[in-house]
């Protein structure tokens, strides 16, 4: 085994994602603890071009393969597993994203390594340990890992992407990978559809979450939004229920918003939601649970029932 840290380079449409740069920043700090270097593995067709923006790594392992023109959950995982097996890095970092979670689980199982999910931070100064977010961000857990090697799936925002972006071009090392017969084949990519209301354009945004309880109660929140001249947005559970269109979703799966005022009603503040709204200028949160993580990012908070609060504020705005 080596003392190195191996980062999975997540890329889409020829661009390295912010999540990858966050991993590189985390990896740099960990490499100082292990005394190793930072390797970044870029896998797929055309990835040589990515090295120009991967100076945050000491070495970029470039696995050019025409067999993987777009992300393939099976193919990319198999190729990355092979690199992990060959290089035996001490730590493997993947982003806890749609792509990273596929890679992390398969690589961990294929290499017999422990996997730690939902990581906020990792420490390798004395054995391996991490701090993670569980129960939709309501609980923080400290964990220790058996052995001296593991895979860590890092939550968005766990480090500064800018820190990992510095350094210009990376030093490329060409590597060969074997792509197995694939049972999963890529067909096509779809960009989001526009139309409906643009929730990224509003100065004020009223956003509702699970606390709205039923579709019948949406109208009450809509009245408040109308009184404010604001679009009505929502967190994922509301969209998944089909109560509001997908174009209204704030968070990792939806849109990132930065209004002057974000009014979060009955939203607990799962990490996936916070990712999409934490940079709003002023965040006001109303929730009945005083422990709701939304209060951790809010500037103003009130603990109480949204069904008491909503009509009260609507009346004042209309009056």
């Amino acid at each position, binding site marked *: 085994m080596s003392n190195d840290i191996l980062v999975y380079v997540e890329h889409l449409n020829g661009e390295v994602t912010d999540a990858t740069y966050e991993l590189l920043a985390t990896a740099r700090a960990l490499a100082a603890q292990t005394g190793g270097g930072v390797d970044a593995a870029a896998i797929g067709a055309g990835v040589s071009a990515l090295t120009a923006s991967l100076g945050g790594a000491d070495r970029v392992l470039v696995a050019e393969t025409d067999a993987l023109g777009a992300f393939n959950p099976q193919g990319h995982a198999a190729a990355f597993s092979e690199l992990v097996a060959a290089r035996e890095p001490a730590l493997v970092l993947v982003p806890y994203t*749609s792509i990273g979670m596929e890679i992390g689980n398969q690589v961990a199982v294929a290499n017999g390594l422990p996997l730690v999910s939902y990581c906020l931070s990792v420490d390798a100064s004395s054995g391996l340990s991490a701090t993670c977010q569980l129960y939709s961000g309501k609980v923080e857990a400290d964990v220790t890992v058996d052995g001296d090697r593991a895979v860590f799936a890092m939550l968005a925002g766990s480090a500064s992407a800018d820190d990992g972006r510095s350094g210009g071009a990376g030093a490329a090392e060409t590597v060969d990978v074997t792509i197995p017969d694939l049972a999963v084949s890529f067909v096509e990519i779809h960009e989001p559809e526009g139309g409906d209301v643009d929730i990224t354009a509003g100065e004020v945004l009223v956003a509702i979450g699970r606390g709205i309880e039923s579709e019948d109660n949406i109208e009450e929140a809509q009245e408040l939004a109308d009184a404010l001249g604001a679009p009505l947005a929502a967190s994922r559970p509301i969209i*998944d229920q089909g109560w509001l269109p997908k174009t209204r979703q704030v968070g990792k799966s939806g849109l990132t918003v930065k209004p002057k005022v974000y009014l979060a009603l009955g939203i607990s503040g799962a990490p996936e939601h916070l990712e999409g709204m934490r940079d709003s200028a002023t965040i006001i949160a109303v929730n009945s649970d005083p422990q709701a993580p939304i209060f951790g990012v809010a500037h103003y908070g009130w603990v109480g029932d949204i069904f008491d609060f909503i009509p009260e504020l609507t009346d004042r705005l209309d009056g």
Partner: protein
Amino acid sequence: MKIAVLMRAVPDPVEELEIDGADLDRDFLGYVLNEFDDHALEEGLLLKEETGGTLTAFALGSADEVEQMLHTAIAKGADSAKKLGDDLDAVDAHAQAATFVSAIRDGGYDLILSGVQASDEIDGQVAMLVAASLDLPHVSVVVGTSPGEGSLRVTKEYWAGITADYDVATPAVLGIQTAREAPRYVAVARIRQAQESGALEEVDIEQPENSSGVTITAMRLPEAGEGAEMIEGDEEAAAGRVLEILQAAGVR
């Protein structure tokens, strides 16, 4: 098409949580079906209806809610439902996956569906661990499927509304984020009927050891409202203060 849906009970996301040592205080904790598993069940039911297949729902755990989850699955259209083990509340994702694998390994399923994640999966995601153990192809964060000949067209969500379609040869495992349609409603009378039908089968499975190599040493609730100015008083006070904040921000 022969479909298996793997379901877990998780702490109710709307409940306030309390900590007892390095775990939740589970004495009075309410459990609900993992919301992503609910979507996996819905997607499974839609595929069953489209292909004229069968669907078996599997669930883990001892909580009373687990039987309720399975009866609900039957009432919604599952052909059979199996409750696995009776002492599996605090096991990790690896042990959960191992339990599911032992229950489905010889079942000849074409498609295994489960939720993309659960809020307590610190050591990996069950759907993907099951796929890796059975050496089956896998796609996760799936937001829709449509059946083809010997394969499935699945839509995977990346982020920010970007999705991609994949063709997946069956047998396969899918981690479902959102079903094509919102999970169907089922009347309480139907659930009661399912309860009385005796269709729920209890499968005695030896509890697997936690084998993930990941140990939780401490748990805590993050500081509530750290940095936030908390508004005191009733809803009138709250609405008044929020109006002032809106005015100060120049949006009112």
